[in-house]
């Protein structure tokens, strides 16, 4: 024993002993408390990552349907519903991909299903195709008229909507639903093939809207205003978007 140790004051020696005991206890206990793998990947138990990935799929993903249902996947891919996942309608099908006969898909044939996406809600983006299901062909199921994998309105839609879909769909749920596009825009047939060469005409003055809206004996059931006093400094469409006119 080096001879300086006995010369240390008693209390220091005791303190030193205590420190040694604490340090040893810490070294023994620490590995017992810290879970295996802690710190390998960061400040956490690395085995936790294994736990996180040990979870079964419920949704197989659209790509996995193609192997056996390529007819349906290609039909879906070419239509309006191209961004929809099969399983958003048919339910989670990871089990079906493993054992097609055992796990059967759901078939949402009722009228209450499609409106989860298509019922008119003011918060939906303008131009998203919406219906008011109470008045939209209420006696039949949606799939009677619309093939769910390639939904097109069963009649050929207005030609303009092919290129101006957003406008056409806004107008369809607006007060002007019954005013035809070509009532307000005179369009040369050529516009449909070379739209920039053959420009469609737009209304140019307040009198145009006045045809239906200004007090006169026009017999229109449109709400009436007085052209000369109703905000005469502006053209009407600075305040009322003609494809979704709002008042109040």
């Amino acid at each position, binding site marked *: 024993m080096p001879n300086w140790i006995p010369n240390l004051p008693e209390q220091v020696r005791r303190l030193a002993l205590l420190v040694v005991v604490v340090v040893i206890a810490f070294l023994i206990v620490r590995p017992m408390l810290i879970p295996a793998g802690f710190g390998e*990947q960061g400040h*956490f138990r690395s085995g*936790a990552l294994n736990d996180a*990935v040990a979870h079964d*799929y419920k949704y197989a993903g659209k790509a996995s349907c193609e192997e056996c249902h390529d007819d349906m996947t290609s039909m879906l891919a070419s239509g309006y519903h191209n961004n929809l996942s099969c399983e958003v309608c048919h339910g*989670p099908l990871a089990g079906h991909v493993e054992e097609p006969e055992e796990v059967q898909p759901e078939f949402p044939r009722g009228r209450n299903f499609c409106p*989860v996406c298509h019922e008119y809600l003011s918060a939906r983006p303008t131009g998203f195709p919406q219906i008011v299901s109470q008045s939209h062909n209420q006696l039949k199921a949606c799939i009677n008229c619309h093939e769910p994998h390639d939904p097109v309105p069963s009649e050929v839609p207005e030609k303009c909507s092919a290129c101006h879909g957003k406008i056409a769909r806004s107008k369809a749920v607006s007060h002007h639903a019954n005013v035809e596009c070509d009532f307000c825009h005179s369009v040369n047939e050529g516009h449909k093939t070379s739209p920039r060469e053959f420009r469609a005409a737009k209304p140019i003055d307040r009198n145009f809207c006045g045809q239906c809206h200004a007090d006169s004996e026009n017999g229109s059931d449109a709400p009436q205003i007085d052209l000369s006093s109703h905000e005469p400094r502006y053209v009407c469409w600075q305040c009322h978007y003609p494809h979704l006119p709002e008042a109040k």
Partner: protein
Amino acid sequence: MRNLINAKRRDVLKSLMGLVAGLFVPKSIMAEKDQQKRFDWADDSIHYDPHDHKWGMGIDIDNCIGCGRCSAACKIENDVPREPFFFRTWVERYHILENGETIIDSPNGAIDGFNKKPDEEDVLRSFFVPKLCNHCDNPPCVQVCPVGATYESADGVVLVDSEYCIGCSYCIQACPYGARFLHPVTRTAEKCTFCYHRIVRGNDPACVEACPTQARIFGELEQKASPLHRFKRMNRIGVLKPALNTEPKVFYAHLDMEVK
């Protein structure tokens, strides 16, 4: 005398060389350590290294139609309890009224969609906001966990180790986005994992799979050629509660100032 000096010089040179060599030692040890860091998955069909990725999500408010298929799919995929109040992701509807008031609703997280509001007359504008864990780069929940049971993995995903979670709920209190809840059965904290079990196997999270309008974009943050990077380049981006410096990795396009 001469000998002695020489001997000393040799010693000095020796230790100098040792020192120089020593400089390289830590490097090579570190390099080895880095290699060790590559993770061994218990499921050896997984070839995924968390260090090679950095995940995030983009949400385009203008594309969200409020169908709630994301929150419905999330509940199913992750066995989230069906009762209300337990959500890993949910959709809120904002109605901003003419008088400046803001009304927010999210009936059952929108797992059954939304109903028309009867009094939609005084609405100035309205829109949907999908929400989920923001996978913050500076996560308050991780900072408060007393046992290291919630953590940010190398790929940026914030996860919970339910083996070690003691259910103290500090993280739930700490999360400014209300993205966590205590599982009623296991009594451990739960939250969105970006569907970690799916992304390590190369699939999209269930909510992204279910979204019909590409309102949710999932992808790599640090690769230039990724849909998410493009999304961030082409849109004006906002995050939720930026003043808190949590550095979220969920990015919103066309986010309204009123969204909290």
